[in-house]
């Protein structure tokens, strides 16, 4: 059996679309389920404001849903656009685009569910703080969505850039690596950012007077959790836009694929770990506002140490791309 290039491109596009939506559905569903569970607990605690809680649940779920809507858009493009090309690279591009968006939606979907659930629970505890809680939830969830937006950007650049003129041999691995770096790199940051935002909403409900330092430190902590997703995006961009010389050997493509996997997988742990740290710092600022300065300093020192393995991954990925 001998298939032409166009057949392989269609096969890769359908596989990519299926993977994008299949993987992309995981996170949002878990996050929204968590939100609904917290909303039920909140209504049972304070049935008098069930309308407000329901509204807040739906808003929070809508934000969590956006990650999987990105995946749906990418899947639809992969299924219904006819890509014509005479290069096998295009087939890898289709697969990579789907994988990138699928993985990229997991963390943000789960993460955005956490602040929405905490906001529902917080409203039941402190109905007077509903407005502030909703604002905090919206800001926190928006930050959680950024890694999935990075994945969407990478996915779109892969889909709408013409890679067919490049040399097949290292470029196929470069585009796959770019998808892995940006997609897997988004998992930890999305999840970590969600943990911090959850703690921010809980803190405001517990101690309304410390709402300002809680929101400030929440945003600072979330910003640090996003850094590893940015490293993933950076490696993805380098892999997509650097032109690599043609080669017959198998080693250079594997170096590029290795760079993508290294940065993508290496970004997961620091993102989650930094989220744990900032969650705890925000939680204790709400309980003991006097220690805000000490807690912020310790949080940043702790996060910097947790970041180190993410930086090692970045270094190894850069060595694999530029030196190997």
């Amino acid at each position, binding site marked *: 059996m001998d298939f032409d290039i166009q057949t392989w491109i269609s096969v890769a596009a359908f596989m990519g679309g299926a993977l994008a939506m299949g993987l992309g559905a995981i996170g949002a569903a878990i996050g929204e389920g968590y939100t609904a569970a917290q909303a039920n607990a909140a209504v049972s605690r304070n049935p008098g404001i069930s309308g407000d809680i329901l509204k807040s649940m739906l808003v929070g779920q809508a934000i969590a849903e956006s990650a999987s809507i990105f995946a749906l858009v990418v899947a639809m493009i992969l299924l219904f656009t006819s890509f014509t090309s005479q290069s096998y690279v295009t087939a890898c591009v289709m697969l990579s685009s789907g994988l990138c968006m699928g993985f990229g939606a997991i963390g943000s979907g789960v993460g955005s569910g956490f602040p929405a659930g905490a906001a529902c629970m917080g409203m039941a505890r402190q109905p007077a703080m509903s407005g502030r809680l909703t604002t905090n939830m919206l800001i926190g969830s928006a930050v959680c969505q950024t890694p999935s937006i990075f994945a969407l950007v990478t996915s779109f650049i892969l889909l709408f850039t013409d890679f067919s003129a490049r040399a097949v041999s290292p470029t196929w691995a470069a585009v796959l690596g770019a998808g892995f770096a940006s997609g897997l790199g988004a998992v*930890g940051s999305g999840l*970590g950012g969600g943990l911090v935002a959850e703690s921010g909403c809980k803190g405001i409900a517990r101690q309304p007077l410390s709402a300002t330092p809680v929101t400030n430190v929440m945003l600072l902590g979330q910003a640090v959790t996003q850094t590893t997703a940015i490293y993933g995006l950076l490696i993805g961009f380098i892999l997509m836009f650097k032109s690599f010389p043609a080669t*017959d*050997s*198998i*080693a250079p*493509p*594997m*170096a590029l*694929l*290795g*760079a*993508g*996997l*290294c940065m*993508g*997988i*290496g*970004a*997961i*742990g*620091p*993102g*989650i*770990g*930094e*989220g*744990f*740290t900032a*969650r*705890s*710092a925000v*939680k*204790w600022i709400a*309980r*003991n506002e*006097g*220690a805000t300065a*000490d*807690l912020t300093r*310790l*949080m940043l*020192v*702790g*996060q910097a*140490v*947790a*970041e*180190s*393995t*993410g930086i*090692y*991954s970045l*270094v*190894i*990925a850069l*060595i*694999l791309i530029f*030196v*190997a």
Partner: protein
Amino acid sequence: MAIEGADIVQAAAYLGAGLSMGLGAIGPGVGEGMAAAKACEAIGKNPREAGLLTRTMLVGQAVSESTGIYSLVVALLLLFVV
């Protein structure tokens, strides 16, 4: 396209270096984050001991970092020595 044995070995070393550092970064990242989270909790409960707690946290994180450094060393060995 003839692929030689040495070429496959080199390819495996490159891919292995990436996987070594990538997978090896997960554990220390999560573990050090947990250590720092508990240190934040402790300072929240007892702010006067901030100096002692920061020192303890950093020592604990340094130990937890060691596996990340092993991964880095193995990745660098795969890239430049093997």
